[in-house]
């Protein structure tokens, strides 16, 4: 067992984990933050996307020990003081989700996307979201949501 400590959604957390524990397992099983989902086993679907030190990361592709000392944000930490993040609000407003399973990862990726591309074109949004699979929406309304959020985020 190895001790890992990190900040998750602004809170200091620490636990003893097996060295092969994935960050997503640590988040879901140790912290019981179940908004971060697992949809595949080949790092393709992106349902597990979180932010590590501000960058989007597929948390199934990182060991918990690699995140030792990091500042991690999950979907549960995105809204501030009960106010939805503009990306969350845009997904709701534009029907950017159906079953909701890919949504947390999609939103976390999209937030990072807009951070790096403040005024993204449709093409940029589609290319940037290539690492997140949604089976319900056909991406049409996801693209619309991200575009709308980018405008509201001051892009």
């Amino acid at each position: 067992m190895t001790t890992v400590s990190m900040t998750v959604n602004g809170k200091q957390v620490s636990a003893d984990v097996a060295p092969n524990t994935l960050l997503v397992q640590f988040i879901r099983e140790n912290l019981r933050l179940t908004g971060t989902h697992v949809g595949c086993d080949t790092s393709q679907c992106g349902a597990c996307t979180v932010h590590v030190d501000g960058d989007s990361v597929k948390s199934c592709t990182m060991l918990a020990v690699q995140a030792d000392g990091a500042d991690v944000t999950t979907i549960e930490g995105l809204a501030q003081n009960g106010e939805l993040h503009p990306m969350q609000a845009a997904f709701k407003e534009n029907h950017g989700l159906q079953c909701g399973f890919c949504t947390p990862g999609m939103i976390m990726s999209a937030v990072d996307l807009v951070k790096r591309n403040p005024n993204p074109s449709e093409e940029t949004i589609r290319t940037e979201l290539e690492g997140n699979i949604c089976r319900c929406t056909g991406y049409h309304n996801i693209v619309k949501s991200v575009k709308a959020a980018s405008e509201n985020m001051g892009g």
Partner: protein
Amino acid sequence: MSVENGIGASVRRKEDQRFITGNGHYLDDINRVGQAYGYFLRSPHAFAKISNIDLTAAKAAPGVVDIFTGADMVADGVGGLICGWGITSKDGSPHNAPPHNSLAVDAVRHVGDQVAFVIADTLQQAKDAAELIEVDYEVLTPVTNISKALAPGAPQIHEEAPGNLCYDWELGDKAAVDAAFANAAHVSKIDLVNNRLSPNPMEPRAALGEYDAGSEELTLHTTSQNPHVARLIMSAFLGIAPENKLRVIAPDVGGGFGSKIFVYAEETTTIWAARKINRPVKWTSDRSEAFLTDAHGRDHVSHAELAMDNDGKILAFRVSTQANMGAYLSTFASAVPTYLYGTLLSGQYKIPSIYVEVQAGFTNTTAVDAYRGAGRPEATYVVERMMDTAARDLSMDPTEFRLKNFIQPDAYPYETPVIMTYDSGDYPLAMNLAKEMIDYDGFAARKAQSEANGKIRGIGTAAYIEACGIAPSAAVGSLGAGVGLWESAEVRFNPTGSVTVFTGSHSHGQGHETTFAQIIADKLGVPIESVEVVHGDTSKVPFGMGTYGSRSLAVGGSAIVKAVDKIVEKSKKIAAHLMEASVEDIEHEHGVFSVAGTDKQMTMGEIAFAAYVPHNYPADLEPGMAENAFYDPLNFTFPAGTHIAEVEIDPATGIVDIVDWAAADDFGNIINPMIVEGQVHGGVAQGIGQALLEGVVYDDDSGQLITGSYMDYCMPRADDLPSFRITTTNTPCPSNPLGVKGCGEAGAIAAPAALMNAIVNALGKDIDMPATPEKVWRAINSN
């Protein structure tokens, strides 16, 4: 008077708040104190006999609670998995449904077949122990291709199905069709493969089984589209527990697309094992297991012929199809290539006679069952590829050929030669609208422009029809269904005026919590935030047949309307009593009850309160305000429309770029346009996936699944798809009180044919799905 958030409003979804904040409760998010973890040892072989399973070392491994094999379940009297729809072959014999044990007993018949269930304190321990199980296999030669499986001399997969035949079914008037072909001026022919797909809802299947030794109750949390049906089958056929001792809960479910209708081996084994070890057991599929075991879709091989007269009028249509059932007959598998397929072969066309024959057979592959559209995409693909081929043979524009042969808007009810009675529609309207949207007439100029740029442009149309709102119980019963297909609802007012709606439908992305609440808001004037929709729990909902076949609104919504009608009827009596008028004089609109010709009125909330605090109340009336209703539809519903795809192909790479997509769909009345559009987007995306990207591939010799992960099975990504332009036409459905038709499957039904017709139009030659860049490039570069 329209009501805020009522019928017709694009109300933002109530359920979204929990999903966008990470507060949904999907199956794997649920845990129980002391739960153990289950892991399935699966067959590495496509076809093998099992002579021995040695568990000694595995049982002694750290953390192992117990390990079960097929013999244990048989000894415990657990029955095999069943198929709930009996198909009768041409010769009058019932279909062959070989035994299907949850855990293999003496043979495995596809890669991934369940061999043993290992339960340990942690998942890692269960996986490690599984590696210590020693199974003696006698490996046999497998067959995965349906045509090869049905050919003489193929490996025999089940003793009970000679020649691997499940059934040899027919529908229609063969003699009339043959006669029409004999006298036809033109005959067009086409051979088609409808590629096998893996449904891939983003949430993998999972199960959490619990046993309460005190009450002897079993509770199964499961990723199901129809928890009551799962309970019924597990009780009546598998003998897991009586229905009153078995609670099935399907919480937030992350997509289904058909694949979560079925009663699977894993969920069955998990709940059975929970009682055996008297401890909660959780099993969560990983994606690799999902590819190996979630029921696949499609996998048809078809030959079709169309007979026409000199003017291009259709005289007759005949189709011969081979359908791959996989290794075992899944829950509704038999119905998909028959009554959900053959019955739709008239499409939108007036065709005097039709004959279809379908041979379904077994192979050493994952079971095939309903996947978004289920039979109807296969039918539309045959019909619409056929129409384009015929138009090409006659040198006619494909849309003109279709318009010439459409059933006309004044022809309803229209009885097809394949036992459907279409109730309403306006096919020319939708087609002309779609043509206008995509500027069909401007295509030639755009094609010339593409050509100037070194690209090949194509345009393709699909005019689809589907039978939804599944289904009138008497009708499906006469065709072999083992269940009725009604739906139930309860509308329960709370004393303070809020409402809880219990529905037997199940939402796994469709937005029922919003759409159904809109019906209540509209009809009873209750603010939408005061309406709670409850589904997916057999101990809360009276009963339910679940969600598939675009039935939730047409059948489940109609059940809610029936319950609302009873609420209104009772409320009128209370209102009459309290306002000292006769019941006949009480008028009702959107939850306001008034006395005709006066300004006296009461709200639904006031009446509900009076019903629960009945101090001043009609003497002959029961207190309380809760009504339930069961609704059995009178007919299927028939959504229909036209999708037109325009593509540009780069001959250097073979990459197909979808440059435009226009759709005009007739879904009848629409409750929430935003949700309906979203359903079409998603359906079209899955259809495009089938046409361009997706395809389950098995190695012919070994029977190994080659496309077993997202590295190998090409799922549509954001940058594979265009934005869509869609609109709706509306001819209300006459057979249900909401006038709705269903929209969930339309896109997946229309899209493959539209897109493939566009690609064939561009290439000038036939090509099968998926039209991958390699396949397209080869088509361009071959003679």
